[in-house]
Structures are given as C-alpha cells and as structure tokens.
C-alpha cells in the first residue's frame, strides 16, 4: 500500500511523460522533492502571517510597557495594528482551511488511514530517537545516528503543538473579533476565556514554536545550520536525503515510489535567485529569532520576579 504522504503528488511528477521520454529524463532528476509546491506555499504564507500577527499582537499583550507604546506608534497606532492583525489572521485562516482540505484529500486517498510510516503520527521509533538524543545531550552516550523516516520526532511534536495552537488562536481570535455574536450562543465569560487563551496562546506559540523550537531546528540545528532549505526550494540531492532520512528513502525504494519524488535540480540561474532569497529569509529569521529570544528572556525574568 502506498504511503500516506505520497497520496498527493507533485504536478511535475504526476504529469511525467510516457516511458521512453521519462527514461531519458531520469538522469537529470537527481534531487529528492521533500515538500510539494502546495506545502511550500502554505508554509510561506503561515511564516509571513505569523510574523505579522506577532508584531501587531504582542504590543497589546504588553500594553503597559514603553516599548509596546513606542512600537504601536511606529506601526500607525492601535487601530491600524488591529486591522493589519485581522488581515494577517485571514491569511492564516485561509492556510488552515487549505490544510484541512489537504488532510481530507489524504484521508480519502488512503481510505482513512492517517497513521503509519512517513506520517505525522508518533511511533515507537520516535520515542527511541528522543531517548538516544537525550542520552547524547547529557553526555551518557555518543552522538546517535537517527534512523529517521519522513518526519523526525521534533518535527512531529512541533506539528501537533502548532496545530492545537492555531486552532485555539483561530477560535479565540474569532470570539474577540465578534464578541457580540459569540455571546448570542455562549455565556459572556467565554469572552474572558478567549482573552486569556489568545494572549497566553500567543506567548506559547511565539516562545515555544519559534524561539525554543522551530527556528532552532530549521536554522541553528548543527545538521541544518544556517538554514534547512528544503522548505523553500523543495528539493535536495538524493544521497543527502537518503543519509538524512534513511527510513523514508528505503521505504520508497521498497515500495517503488521513489520515482514520484525525484525532481531535477534547480537551474544555476534560478539557484542564484533562490540563494539570494534564502539569505534574506535566513537573515530575517535569525534577526527575529534574536529579538524574540531577548523578548522571551525578558518575559520570563518579569514573570519569575513577580512572585
């Protein structure tokens, strides 16, 4: 049976011409397509909207601070920040809806089987990976060579944390956007709950997903530093991928689905363009990472000294 993630095929792979022509092209298709164009665009829009949401929302959470008041003035006041925040929220909601549709398609194609190798559902192997890594972290065992499938344990953890988080933020955000409508169906205290959860969830999302997790694993992890580019150009050399995620590679060879995810490398010209884009994104990401880290340290310090 085909793996779950191969349920959706890249257009370039699916629209492959007939056998004879394909045979000639195989030589050029030396790269493993890690993410489909759909996944990369969704990631891009979530990245942009998330940054905007944090930059326009956080000053509201810390409205008593001088930096928040100055920043709010800089971006044009609380009313325009509110409009930008809601616009960015609509981008993110659109991404969430697209992903829901994507999951629905997967579920239909796999006849409801959403677990198994290569999926986001945690497995026993993830537990073993985590244990081996922790052993290395504390100096008890040498650095392990992880037998990764498509997603590592830290990517699965992030996926579920972010999914739960984005749903909480969407629901509470909607209540805060239309509190009168919410109160037609729910008691008024739900508006209080929404405020607490939107504000706490924002800090959790920013701190955990961005500062302590995502930026680290995508940029600062030794294997990825300075940036894991697979999410932006979609492909990396097959040997590299086979080394990095041996289980998925072996599985695809075994199932005969490797051909679906092979793509040609980018042309030198496009590579130059993308290189510029990568460095801009990497620079912005590292800068934001530094700012958010200082911010979270400041929040933690304030929180600890408040007792």
């Amino acid at each position, binding site marked *: 049976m085909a793996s779950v993630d191969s349920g959706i095929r890249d257009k370039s792979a699916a629209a492959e011409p007939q056998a004879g022509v394909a045979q000639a092209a195989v030589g050029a298709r030396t790269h493993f397509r890690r993410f489909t164009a759909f996944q990369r665009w969704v990631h891009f829009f979530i990245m942009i909207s998330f940054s905007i949401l944090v930059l326009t929302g956080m000053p509201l959470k810390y*409205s008593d601070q001088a930096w928040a008041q100055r920043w709010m003035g800089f971006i044009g006041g609380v009313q325009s920040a509110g409009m930008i925040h809601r616009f960015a929220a609509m981008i993110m909601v659109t991404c969430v809806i697209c992903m829901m549709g994507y999951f629905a398609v997967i579920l239909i194609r796999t006849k409801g089987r959403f677990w198994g190798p290569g999926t986001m559902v945690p497995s026993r192997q993830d537990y073993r990976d985590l244990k081996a890594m922790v052993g290395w972290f504390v100096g008890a065992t040498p650095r392990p060579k992880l037998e990764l499938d498509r997603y590592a344990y830290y990517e699965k953890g992030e996926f579920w944390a972010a999914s739960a988080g984005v749903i909480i933020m969407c629901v509470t955000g909607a209540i805060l956007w239309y509190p009168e409508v919410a109160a037609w169906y729910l008691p008024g205290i739900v508006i209080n709950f929404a405020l607490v959860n939107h504000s706490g969830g924002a800090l959790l999302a920013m701190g955990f997903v961005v500062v302590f997790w995502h930026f680290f*694993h995508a940029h600062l992890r030794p294997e990825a530093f300075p940036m894991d580019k697979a999410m932006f150009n979609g492909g990396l050399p097959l040997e590299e991928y086979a080394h990095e995620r041996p289980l998925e590679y072996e599985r695809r060879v075994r199932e005969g689905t490797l051909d679906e995810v092979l793509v040609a490398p980018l042309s030198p010209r496009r590579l130059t363009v993308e290189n510029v884009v990568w460095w801009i994104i990497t620079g912005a990401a590292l800068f934001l990472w530094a700012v958010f880290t200082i911010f979270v340290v400041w929040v933690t310090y304030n929180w600890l000294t408040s007792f």
Partner: protein
Amino acid sequence: MSTRGFLPTFLATVFVLTAVAAAPAGASTFTIPTGASDRCLECHAKPDLGTIEVNGETKSLTVSEDGWHNSVHSRLDCTACHAGFEARDHTPEETEGWYTQAKLTACSDCHAGEFKMYDKSFHGDLVMNEGSKKAPACGDCHGSHGIISPSSPAFRAAVPDMCGRCHGDKRSTYLDTYHGKSQSLGGTSTAVCTDCHGSHMILPQSNPASTISSQNVVATCGKCHENASPRFASFLVHVDRSTPKSSLWVWLMEMNHAFLIGVLFTLGGLHCFLYFYRGLKEGLYHRG
C-alpha cells in the same frame, strides 16, 4: 515673464491670497479679556510663589498661564470663581473659608444641571452629606485653572488614571481588557471608565438607576456594541487574573497557561540548548 521668475511670484501670490483669506477668520475669534485676570497673574504666574495648606491639602499658589489661557474659562475673570478676592495679599483664613465653599458652589452657579446630577450621585452624596474629604468634587476630576473639554482625547486618555487615584484596583483590571490596552497604546476609540459608569451621576451597581445596573447595563454596552445582549453584558470587565477570588475559572485558565509556558519553555529550551552545546563541542558547525 521668464520661467525663472514665475515660480517665486506664483508662490508669493498663493501665500498672500491665503493670508488674506485667513485673516478675517482670525480676526473674528474671541479675544481674551484683559483686566482683573491679568492683574492676578502678575503675581500668580510666578513659578516660585510657594504653597498653601487648604483643607489638609498642599496647593500650589502658582497658576499656569498657558493652561489658563488655553482653558475655556479664561473668558471669565478670576473673581467669577474666587469670589471676594481682591488685589492684595490674601490671608490663609480667607482662602480656607473660600475653598470649602467654592469647591462646589464656584461651579454650580453656571453648571447647575451638572451639579444637580452630581448632587444625587454616589460621589456627591459622600461629599455633600457625609462630609467626605476624599470623595471627588468638580475640581478633582476637571482640574481648576487648566480645564479642558471632557470630550477631548486628552481628557479621555487621562480618565483611567483620574479614577484610579481612588479606584486603583479597578484601574488595573480595566487596563487588562481590550478597552484599557487600546487606551494605553494611544487608541481613542475604546471605552474609558466614564463611558460605562457615567460621569456626574455615578451610582452603585445595586441602584436601579445606575448605568451598570442589571436593568441598564445592556443599553450601556449597546452605546458602542450594537448587538449587545444580556449574555454579552455578563462579560467580566473588572477581573483580576492573578487571584482565584476574582474569578475562579479565569484564574485556573491563567494558571494553566503559566504551567504550560513554564514546562514547555524549560523542556524546549533545554532540548535546543543541549543540542546546540553538543553540536558546538563536537565541531558539527564546522564544515569543510
């Protein structure tokens, strides 16, 4: 006319025409009356005039000239409110006696309607009937010499701090709502204390005539929130998230977030830091 000479001439014409058009408008504005007020300011505008104890409060004898001239009351003479004062040294007794009286009556002569409402209000009752020295009279909220319009953004922005002088706990819980946060960040569209509680005729929630009584609260919310319903109005405006005494559920939710943030930031931080540390120690960031 050469092209070089045209632009300055053109601009000069525009400038002159604008000045001519604007001049009559400027001439028709109210001129500040000279006389009594200016005579008082000869002394009272001096910044080093000192202070005086009235009614147990230390008051500065200096009047801000700018504040006074910018206030709507600068059309009046000083003696319109400071009745009986003359251009000589005033004795402390004279001032004390005037202050006790004038604290209320100096305003009520002109603002009879507002005074009537205030008289019936919770604050008014405390001052007029209970003889409270703490409860606010007119000047405690409006100021005295530099009075500005209560509907001006500057006055509205100052309301939470004004009420917070006595109702500090309510101020801090207000500042924790969207209304208050928006105000702190310079927003002008959200409600301040007086929008919900009223101004001159503030009454306790238990009084049916109060703007926040169960009979009136929905209409009060409805001033801004068109579709306000009783359930909408049951939103807890003044809730202190940091204590279970205010609202148990809100506090539990807040604690839940504090717990999640504490645990996840610690574990996540450790995972990242140790990963980074081991990678650095084993030279994984150096690539040939």
